[in-house]
């Protein structure tokens, strides 16, 4: 595997197959915890740990796991790593643990992780599996950050807890409430769809002129 191939493999998760904006997977944690940028990044890091560890382990064990029980095996592997993260976050920061709530344990049922284990790690050797998992994790974290930052700026007038607009700013509270999550993600998807549309139109014009 050459260096460019690896880079390609990595960038697939970050950009072309971004889990949130392109595949629209793992929405539950993406919408529930992104009321602030800090929460979003913490959730991203926790998911990164679980995703990379489970993908590498699944890849190492891929020849030992019987095909019939593979999904059950993957879920048990994922659940083990999630238990580790759960206890780890509880030990490091109780405030963060309370903010993320049940959504740390619910990483188990994040479709991105099971999807990667099934679609990629179970068919590839550990190194590509690791690179792919890291790319996907970074893409997921970026997606969470994009949601969390917009919601925090609009809903609380701050970013990373630092006030941005001075005292006269009237926070747009609905953005940190549940409907805001749906609206902000919908708007991001709309933006990407519009950009894609524009790119296609440009390509068409160039083709017609040539």
């Amino acid at each position: 595997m050459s260096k460019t191939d690896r880079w390609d493999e990595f960038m697939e998760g970050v950009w072309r197959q971004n889990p949130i904006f392109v595949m629209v997977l793992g929405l539950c944690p993406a919408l529930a915890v992104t009321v602030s940028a800090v929460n979003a990044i913490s959730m991203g890091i926790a998911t990164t740990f679980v995703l990379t560890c489970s993908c590498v382990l699944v890849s190492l064990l891929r020849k030992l796991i019987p095909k019939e029980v593979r999904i059950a095996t993957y879920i048990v592997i994922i659940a083990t790593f999630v238990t580790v993260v759960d206890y780890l976050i509880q030990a490091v920061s109780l405030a963060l643990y309370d903010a993320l709530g049940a959504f740390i344990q619910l990483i188990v049922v994040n479709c991105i992780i099971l999807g990667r284990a099934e679609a990629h790690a179970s068919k590839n050797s550990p190194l590509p599996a690791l690179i792919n998992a890291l790319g996907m994790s970074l893409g997921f974290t970026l997606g969470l950050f994009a949601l969390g930052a917009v919601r925090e700026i609009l809903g609380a007038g701050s970013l990373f807890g630092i006030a941005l607009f001075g005292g006269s700013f009237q926070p747009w509270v609905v953005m940190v409430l549940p409907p805001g999550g749906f609206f902000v993600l919908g708007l991001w998807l709309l933006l990407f769809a519009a950009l894609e549309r524009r790119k296609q139109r440009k390509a068409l014009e160039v083709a017609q002129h040539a």
Partner: protein
Amino acid sequence: MHESVWQIFINAFLANNFVLAMFLGLCPFIGVSGKLETAVPMGAATTFVMLVASLCAYGLNLILGALGLEFLRLIAYIVIIASAVQLVEMVLKKYSPGLFRALGIYLPLITTNCAVLGVALFQTAREYDFAQSLMFAVGAGAGFTLAIVLMASVRERLQLSDVPSVAQGTALSLMLAGVLSLAFMGFAGLGG
């Protein structure tokens, strides 16, 4: 326990609707809500799995607590849910093959429906007793069904209207979900 079973039901069903207020079970909510005729059975199947999972989780939690093995809770829950889904799948395949095909990939994916695991985890975290857990599962299932049926009805109507092509697809579904969620915020405080 200060919460009555009725309050728990209303809370899980309307005030803190699992899908629209707590963001649980969004994948099937977006994925299967295209048509009303698949949305209803999906809601029913999910409710059934929630009920089974809740009962099993309650029993399992007692056993794990007695043995001092709480750290195994998450792994044990997910295995129970996977088995319950397998059961539903076999029953549906035998008695209603058409429905089985219509639900397709989303049926086994109930295993990774966070609403189901959410029921088990929340009832443990809130230390509900047996009757409360049961009512919580029924309320959560009813809430999920209500949300997915509402969404499917709106989306069926939308197919007849003129929507800008850029907005079609997931982006529009999310906007709709946002509006529904806004409406459900009106129920806040109903559960006391």
